[in-house]
């Protein structure tokens, strides 16, 4: 088992390096940071050239990569176009984004497992149809649209309705940002403030993720339910529920680990748009801004960070999978 982990870790390193190269390639192809300068007639060619030199754009591509990579490994992510260092910005926003991702994904996981198992056990019942249909529905809804709908209906109207009902100024659910600025209060108040801001974005993200996972879990559970070892477990004298949980669920959850891990890559997209809708100053906003201004260093740092996250998630999934399914431990 240890060998397995170590081997996987070692493989991750070249993957990361290759990712870095790919990222660099893509970002370099993504645009010319000097374009806005060139478009401005007031800026002299010398100034443009100087800037070009500053940004190392006059050197060949592989060399640029080398320079950037060397710095990156040392922890220097370079500066953005405004001259501020990239790394601290990235990490300060990271916390906020991770909060959103974690809460929404865990919520989605719990819901999906419960729904998937329920639908599989009561196949073709009304409950099954409801679960399956909501699953289909939510994977067909664009996240940003749903987020905006939530914002409007729950965030504003429902909140206002509750306000007038309970005659209070206090807001329960917030629609802008991840916390109230200039907030003062004790720890408990602070947490509930965070929570209030988290509710809507979490719901938006969780809904879409839940939909994908519940369908998968249902299919996985169905396959397990029809298997011979379930029948043997019943024939041994285990009552239904025990059979379901100990033999069914345990085995049916295994494929879900890979799905959850792969989702890290996909959910980042959802996070980007959701943050945009709710005005969070998180990673999403940063990327959008960087892409618009062709801020190379920011894009590079951002993509590298997400690549690390994805690779890490896959690694954890691999290890978890091997732990859960003894059949693949040999490899």
């Amino acid at each position, binding site marked *: 088992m240890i060998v397995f982990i170590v081997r996987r870790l070692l493989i991750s390193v070249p*993957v990361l390096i290759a990712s870095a190269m790919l990222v660099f390639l893509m970002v370099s192809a993504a645009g010319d940071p000097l374009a806005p300068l060139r478009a401005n007639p007031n800026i002299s060619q010398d100034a443009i050239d100087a800037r070009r030199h500053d940004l190392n754009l006059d050197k060949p591509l592989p060399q640029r990569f080398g320079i950037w990579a060397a710095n990156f490994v040392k922890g220097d992510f370079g500066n953005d176009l405004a001259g501020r260092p990239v790394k601290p910005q990235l990490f300060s926003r990271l916390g906020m984004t991770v909060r959103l991702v974690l809460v929404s994904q865990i919520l989605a996981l719990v819901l999906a497992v419960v729904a998937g198992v329920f639908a599989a056990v009561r196949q073709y019942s009304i409950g099954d149809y409801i679960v399956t249909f909501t699953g289909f529905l939510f994977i067909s809804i664009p996240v940003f649209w749903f987020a905006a709908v939530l914002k409007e209906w729950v965030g504003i109207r429902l909140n206002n309705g509750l306000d007038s009902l309970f005659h209070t100024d206090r807001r329960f659910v917030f629609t802008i940002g991840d916390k109230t600025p200039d907030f003062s209060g004790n720890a408990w108040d602070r947490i509930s403030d965070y929570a209030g801001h988290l509710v809507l974005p979490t719901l938006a993200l969780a809904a879409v993720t839940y939909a994908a996972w519940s369908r998968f879990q249902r299919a996985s559970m169905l396959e397990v339910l029809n298997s011979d070892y379930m029948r043997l477990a019943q024939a041994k004298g285990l009552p239904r529920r025990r059979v379901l949980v100990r033999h069914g669920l345990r085995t049916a959850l295994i494929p879900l680990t890979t799905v959850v891990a792969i989702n890290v890559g996909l959910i980042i997209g959802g996070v980007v748009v959701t943050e945009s809708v709710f005005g969070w100053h998180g990673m999403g906003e940063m990327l959008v801004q960087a892409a618009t201004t062709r801020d190379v260093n920011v894009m590079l740092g951002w993509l590298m960070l997400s690549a690390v996250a994805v690779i890490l998630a896959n690694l954890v999934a691999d290890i978890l999978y091997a732990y859960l399914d003894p059949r693949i431990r040999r490899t």
Partner: protein
Amino acid sequence: MVTPPDVSLVTPELPVSVGTGPEREFTVKARTQTQLIVRRFFAHKLAVGSLVVFVLILVVSLLGQRFWKYKYGVVNPDALSEAPSWEHPLGTGDLGEDGLAQMLRGAQRSIQIALLVMVLQTAMATLVGAMSGYFRGWVDSGLMRLVDLLLTLPALALLIVLASRFNAGWVGVAFVIAFVGWAADSRVVRGVFLSLREKEYIEAARALGAKDRRIIVRHLLPNSLGVIIVNATLALAIAILFEAALSYLGFGVQAPETSLGKLIADAQGAVDTRPWLFYFPGLVIIMIVLTVNFIGDGLRDAFDPTQTRVRA
């Protein structure tokens, strides 16, 4: 009471039937595989219904523009920001453009992009997956490393980065989406080819002297068609959502073109004042993606009914 016959009953009065008579068994007409698949698909009422709706949306968005009296992009200063009425079923926008015309155009663009993505992505994924799954060895390792690499980068982020550069209109958007999306699909195709190539009939074909190309084209491809087609529908659904997200953020389709995502983005600020501009495009997206998903589900059942049915 039955009179026991003589034991020369071994000469029976009735002939022994070879096989069994028609009155005892089902008689099922022989059908080709394609016919079976088609039949199974049409047994799925939901999938068929979805197909009808999808085709309807497609046709309306294409032809509707020709027959509707208001054209896209035509500004009408007399009718600024009107609510839905008989004259303008979807109201008008800031500059008096007709809402329905905008929607039709938006839908058409979105569907166009998605269809192009589907074709490009499926072609690419099939090519790579087939070669990888069939030839294995170095080809497989190399290609799959590339695929894995591409998969470490989050799709939307990559889309944003790339699309911000390429401004080749809706075709460019389609290419970018296809470029980011083919990787995951190719894995699936590879999986199918890997399992198929071990079948005995492939070995038999090879023993008869069939060359690789013939085996791939004549044997493996038709048998993997089911998976490929189902994946294509999924690609279509995802493409629509990606395009919408991209346009929403401002990186997709640019003015003067429009798409459903862009319509939503444009109408964001007016959610409470002019909700129709915001909700309708969203609903159309949902309709399209939902129907495509149902169709894909029906196709999956039609091609392989032994799989556990995810009936909706």
